[in-house]
């Protein structure tokens, strides 16, 4: 038993991020005891955004390739959920599951196709970033333009509330804990995977892809798998968001959201996984403060943040603190 606790202690000492992750989980677990139902539903949305940020960090933080198109996947999840729920006559008891499958499946398919062509074409780095940026722009045009299906500029309202296997998640406590469970499963799942063999290979690819290839790893395939997994995670967050808030709008599939999620991850320090979650909460709080001042203030703050980040903290604010 002492052996076990010693091993555990040594492991935690080696990976302080895990300890932070446990602390954050505990805070989020007891949070509902201290806030009212309205605030709880805001925190639930932030948790969904944190899942979204985590999905980007799994790809960007671990492969070093920045996707500027992650809002596409969040949005595909949300629109997949909304369109299946509103336009098709599906039995109410299974409509949420079908919607989740449709949203996540659609996003995974798009990520698979786009990822196949660009990753296997040898595209990395900056090119990857602009192709994914163009992907978001196009997706947004489609969401605005294809109004018979997507509702155009005003989006869609009346997404059926989440019911899974007869269990309804309309109640704010239940929906909060469902989202938290998904977040924690993804968080500890990705920590375990990234600390294991798969994560090591990704780090090797990030450091020197040619070397990793020489060692026999099919690097494009591994990157594609990570990209599709990351996109599916983002889409799940989007689908849950649409079901729990009851609407979708084109700003869920827009460039500004793609930009914001990069900030959430960057503020927490990319590659740390738990940082993405902390970053989401910090930036969300900042956004409330800044947006109340002027509508233009928030985009200007984001822009200034990017410039400051690169010029003064090229390795992220967290890296600065840990140094």
């Amino acid at each position, binding site marked *: 038993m002492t052996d076990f606790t010693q091993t555990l202690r040594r492991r935690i000492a080696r990976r302080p991020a895990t300890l932070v992750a446990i602390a954050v989980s505990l805070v989020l677990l007891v949070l509902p005891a201290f806030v009212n139902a309205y605030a709880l539903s805001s925190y639930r949305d932030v948790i969904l955004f944190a899942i979204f940020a985590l999905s980007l960090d799994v790809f960007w933080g671990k492969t070093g390739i*920045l996707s*500027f198109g992650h809002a596409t996947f969040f949005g595909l999840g949300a629109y997949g959920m909304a369109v299946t729920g509103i336009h098709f006559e599906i039995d109410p008891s299974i409509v949420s599951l079908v919607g989740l499958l449709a949203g996540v499946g659609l996003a995974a398919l798009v990520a698979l196709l*786009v990822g*196949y*062509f*660009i990753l*296997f*074409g*040898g*595209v990395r*780095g*900056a*090119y990857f*970033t*602009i*192709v994914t*940026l*163009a*992907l978001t*722009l*196009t997706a947004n*045009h*489609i969401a605005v*333009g*294809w109004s018979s299906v997507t509702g155009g500029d005003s989006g869609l309202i009346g997404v059926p509330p989440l019911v899974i296997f007869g269990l309804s998640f309309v109640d704010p406590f239940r929906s909060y804990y469902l989202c938290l469970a998904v977040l924690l499963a993804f968080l500890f799942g990705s920590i375990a995977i990234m600390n294991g063999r798969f994560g090591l290979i990704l780090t090797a690819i990030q450091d020197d892809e040619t070397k990793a290839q020489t060692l026999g790893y099919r690097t494009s395939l591994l990157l594609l798998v990570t990209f599709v997994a990351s996109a599916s995670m983002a889409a799940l967050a989007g689908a849950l968001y649409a079901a729990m808030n009851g609407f979708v709008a084109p700003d869920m599939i827009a*460039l500004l959201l793609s*930009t914001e999620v*990069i900030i959430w991850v960057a503020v927490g320090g990319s590659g740390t996984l738990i940082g993405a979650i902390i970053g989401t909460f910090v930036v969300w709080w900042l956004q409330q403060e800044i947006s109340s001042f002027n509508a*233009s203030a928030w*985009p*200007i703050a*984001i*822009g*200034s*943040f*990017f*410039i400051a*980040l*690169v*010029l003064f903290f*090229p390795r992220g604010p967290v890296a600065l603190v840990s140094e």
Partner: protein
Amino acid sequence: MLTDFIPFALNAMTLISILLIVSMGMAIIFGLMNVINLAHGEFITIGAFVFVLVQSFGGNFWIALVVAPFVGYVFGLCLEKALISRVYSNPLHAILVTWGLSLILQQLILLTFGAAPQSVRRPFEGSIEIAGATYPIYRIFLICFAQAIFAITALIFKKSRFGLELRASIQSPEMTSVMGVDPDKINARAFASGAALAALAGVLLAPLTAVTAFMGINYLARSFFVVLVGGAGSISGVAAGSGLIGTLETALPYQIPNTVAQALVLILAIVMLRFRPKGLVPA
């Protein structure tokens, strides 16, 4: 048949001409410094708003056509010196910085001029008849003028000393600087020239579209596609990319919904990357 075809061909030529001027700056900056300038669209917006300002002071299109590239050049030069030159070594940082810049510029323009679209007076009213089809004179002028600018720029790129140093730097920056060419100077001048061309395109575009703080973003995406499809750092690549993207974007909406057409252009650019990652005509 012919009366249908001529307006289509001229519409395609209008878009191609604008793309030629806008994308050239982006292609050269990318080929030369490996920087993807996400604030490139804002240079178009700035050009258009220079026109708005010139008009509000009693000036006209022709004055704006001279002033805007100058403003673009100076603005581009300042930006390059202050920000862009610090991020050449890291393309990801360049993307974040130029994107940040783009967001700030959009909002500053929005705060200064308001959200309502500005209107500008076009220099030529009326249409002319070409082989039985009527077409606005201004668009004919735009096509000729833009092609002339493109030809002059291509000539500078191929024949002048600056062009020679530029092409040499794109091929091998180290060797070029060993030969006594100051890379900082080349980079700064290339970046500023790209900005000037985009600002010029902004003036040409202003009479045809709604002049708003966000007008640049559509052309930003299109000029990505041009550079992706055509290839970075080569004039012929810009011509090939602009021709292809401009024709497709004009032709497809005749047959299929506009949104599907845009998606198809994106798909084409992505599929191209798999088979010709360096573009149709690489540098």
